[in-house]
């Protein structure tokens, strides 16, 4: 028989248990961890990835994958920073552009996915390259400056609660509502669970997939706004690597790459596990090379503990 900790970790909410244990560990062994300041930092640091990963959760539930979000985020950061040039008057417009660009590119991914019928991994890998090219067409260096409002969105707090966390909660609630309380959400699960079956049930699977990509793109838009606010400027490589971090978080959070099942809460918990781990490794003064190793081990061990149960198919 397995000990209770192992079995708690390998339960459906394993990643949340893991998060709890990590935080507990940090409180006990890392004195600087529990300060309000540090906790706020972790929250602010993790919010963009968490939002991006929520969008990725949706596409993965739909049985797809989106590698283009990192570069899309980068493109959005560059364009909105350049648009704003530090002026508050441009804030609203920049928000519109971020969402429009995110949703638009997501939609293009979705439409191409339906039209070309190539594996979404390949499609979005190609898209990644195209978007990166577009970034460098736009600029080869940091451009622009975000407005103070953007800065505040990414770094500010309301009654001590970081605004980015409020935004994250809003996005998470919105997407959860969408996934669990709307037809579209039900169809996203259905298409991921079995596309042909969903089609036979009369679901317009193509449309559902386009929506999934749109959500992913939109999440890149929102996350891009936060990253822009964090950086203050439009750095062309701002989005490099985000797509993989997002996918890792999604899978660690218990969403199956095969599609059809997944959890927003799990994804967010996974992002915070990685964020807290990174924070405490920094605080514990672990050499940066060892940090890489430890982070890899966290992923490997978490995935081993949190693996799906054997399903009885008789």
């Amino acid at each position, binding site marked *: 028989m397995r000990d209770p900790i192992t079995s708690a970790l390998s339960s459906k909410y394993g990643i949340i248990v893991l998060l709890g244990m990590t935080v507990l560990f940090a409180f006990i062994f890392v004195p600087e961890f529990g*300060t309000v*300041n540090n906790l706020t930092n972790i929250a602010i640091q993790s919010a963009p990835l968490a939002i991006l990963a929520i969008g990725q959760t949706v596409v993965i539930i739909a049985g797809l994958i989106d590698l283009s979000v990192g570069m899309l985020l980068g493109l959005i950061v560059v364009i909105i920073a350049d648009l704003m040039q530090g002026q508050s008057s441009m804030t609203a417009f920049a928000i519109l552009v971020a969402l429009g660009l995110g949703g638009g590119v997501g939609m293009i991914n979705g439409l191409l996915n339906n039209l070309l019928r190539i594996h979404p991994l390949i499609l979005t890998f190609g898209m990644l390259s195209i978007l990166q090219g577009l970034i460098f067409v736009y600029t080869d260096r*940091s451009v622009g400056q975000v407005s103070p409002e953007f800065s505040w969105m990414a770094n500010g707090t309301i009654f001590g609660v970081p605004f980015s966390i409020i935004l994250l909660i809003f996005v998470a609630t919105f997407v959860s509502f969408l996934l669990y309380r709307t037809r579209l959400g039900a169809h996203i699960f259905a298409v991921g669970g079995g596309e042909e079956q969903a089609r036979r049930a009369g679901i317009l699977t193509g449309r559902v997939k386009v929506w999934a990509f749109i959500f992913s793109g939109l999440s890149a838009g929102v996350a891009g706004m936060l990253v822009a606010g964090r950086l*203050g400027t439009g750095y062309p490589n701002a989005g490099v690597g985000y797509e993989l971090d997002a996918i890792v978080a999604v899978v660690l959070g218990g969403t199956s790459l095969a599609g059809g099942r997944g959890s927003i809460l799990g994804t967010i918990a996974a992002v915070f596990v990685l964020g807290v781990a990174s924070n405490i490794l*920094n605080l514990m003064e672990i050499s940066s090379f060892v940090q890489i190793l430890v982070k890899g081990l966290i992923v490997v061990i978490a995935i081993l503990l949190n693996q799906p149960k054997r399903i009885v198919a008789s």
Partner: protein
Amino acid sequence: ADEARVMQEKQAAEIVDTSAYKKEGPYKIGVAAGYMGNSWVVFTLQHIKYEASLHDDITEVLVTDAAFNPTKQVADIEDLISKGVDLILYWPVDDKAIEGALKKATDKGIPTINTGGGFVNSPSVTASVFIDQWNLGEMVARRLFQDMGGKGKIFAMLPIAGTTAAVDQLAALKAVMEEYPDIELLSAEYGDWNRAKAKQITENLLQKYPEIDGVFSPAGQMSIGVAEAFDEAGRLSEVIMSPGDEYNGWLKWVRTNNQGGAVTFPTRVGQEALRLGMRILRGENVRRGQKVPSEYISPGAAGVYAETDRPDDWWASELPEAWKPQ
């Protein structure tokens, strides 16, 4: 561009008011590395650690690695502040992108020192100990054009697109080219500091351009990839390589081929930066910018610096043996 450079000289010469940062020891030093996957940085860091070992009042040196991700670097700087460091040395992934985080540090009375990047004039950066990428690019370009006799076709091999280094080097190259109307830039390529990639790109360019007279490549570790491609194509004799930095592999190449030379990109900026930081902590007045100058070393002299029994991925330095990486 020239005005900007004059302006920069002036700003660098300003005296920083360090009274706000004055503090009693012992000190904790934070190093927020924009990236560590690069031997130059490893040497620079060793210089920092070496210098720290010389100060009894430095209790520890904390290093974080952002792996080229500016948002991670922002987070790292915040973590260092949480940890209560007294001084932050950093090299940026991107200068502007981490300004906000640095400002948090200076607001808390933690001086920030730009280590090895270009000069930064910003209230959030207390001081810069810098190697002027522009300046270096300019020296490399001038030397190359002189070696080429002021005319011919060249291409540029630059590091990762979008990084400060790539941007400044290209800007410097173009500025110098204005003085040399007979130099034609065929193409600017990004080899990502990757020797294999630089080689592959060069192999393609060799097919496209029947005539290439010179290569602008300030990063020695890419220069060897470039030179190798020319060599294999049997066209090495046609081309003039620009000076590279004092990357050991490149110095070895210079020694063997007796051309190119080097423009130093001294890893001792790390040491200088910490020294400067200590002065700030003691409340001494310092200049906003302290340049660690790049020097041109002729091919003949460069060979002397080459350490043949050392790996390619190594930098000439004056570190005591015990402090050299492993």
